[in-house]
């Protein structure tokens, strides 16, 4: 059973531009929809507050792992920390990696999230169940919002 998520996306922007959008905490916050307290520093905890409509109560917390300029940005975090009553910090986090490759038209971004086999608690699945409909709905709203105002 595959315990990782992999995505490839072609971006029509130079690698340096994408790298900045990924690793500058203010730029990251713009598209990720999170207000971060400070810059990303490898080995340090990044904290902030989700700005996603309807999910403003969700705290962002990740540990920055690698920042290999214009090549690799990675952090560990807890996916789906949607239930404020649950302390997710004791759980083994998943690893998120953004890899960049230069292409003729811009940048190839490879995203992987791995480590789902280590999610230790059934509370996670419960939280996901509870929020299933709402979360998916919110995603659709945002998508149309972005489409209207690119």
């Amino acid at each position, binding site marked *: *059973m*595959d*315990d990782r*998520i992999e*995505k490839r*996306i072609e*971006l*029509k*922007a130079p690698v340096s*531009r*994408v790298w900045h*959008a*990924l690793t500058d905490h203010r*730029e990251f916050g*713009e*598209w*990720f*929809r999170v207000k971060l307290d400070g810059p990303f520093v490898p080995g340090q905890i990044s904290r902030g507050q989700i700005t996603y409509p309807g999910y403003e109560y969700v705290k962002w917390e990740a540990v920055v792992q690698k920042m290999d300029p214009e090549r690799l940005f990675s952090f560990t975090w807890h*996916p*789906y920390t949607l239930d404020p009553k649950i302390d997710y910090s004791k759980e083994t986090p998943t690893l998120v990696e953004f890899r960049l490759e230069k292409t003729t038209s811009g940048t190839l*971004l490879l*995203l992987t*999230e791995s480590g*789902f*086999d*280590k*999610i*230790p*608690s*059934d*509370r*996670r*699945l*419960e939280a*996901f169940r509870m929020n*299933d409909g709402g*979360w*998916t709905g919110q*995603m659709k709203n*945002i*998508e149309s919002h*972005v489409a209207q105002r*690119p």
Partner: protein
Amino acid sequence: MSRKGRSSTAAKRQAPAPVFAALGDKTRLSLVAKLCGGQPRSISQLTEGSRLTRQAITKHLRVLERVEIVHSVRTGRESLFEFDPVPIEDIKKYLDLVSEQWDQTLSRLKSYVEG
């Protein structure tokens, strides 16, 4: 249907981690592959063609049983094992949701850097 009732209870209890852990083994994966066609099989049938002993196969089946990927049903003198797709569907659903979230997030990144 009673089976459905049992499955939904199981689904509520199952977390992705133990299911992944149970599947993270070649022997158990091959057992799942043999059973997932839907036909219940006996331990003898499942041991056939394997280099492992009945005892070893039984141990692996118990691991799968604990996360409810397989259930044993008694018929006469023998226990038959049958596959239950619900726990695997559940983790697939969970990963699909995380995956969908990434699709949306990356599409926002795309509009952001290309805009």
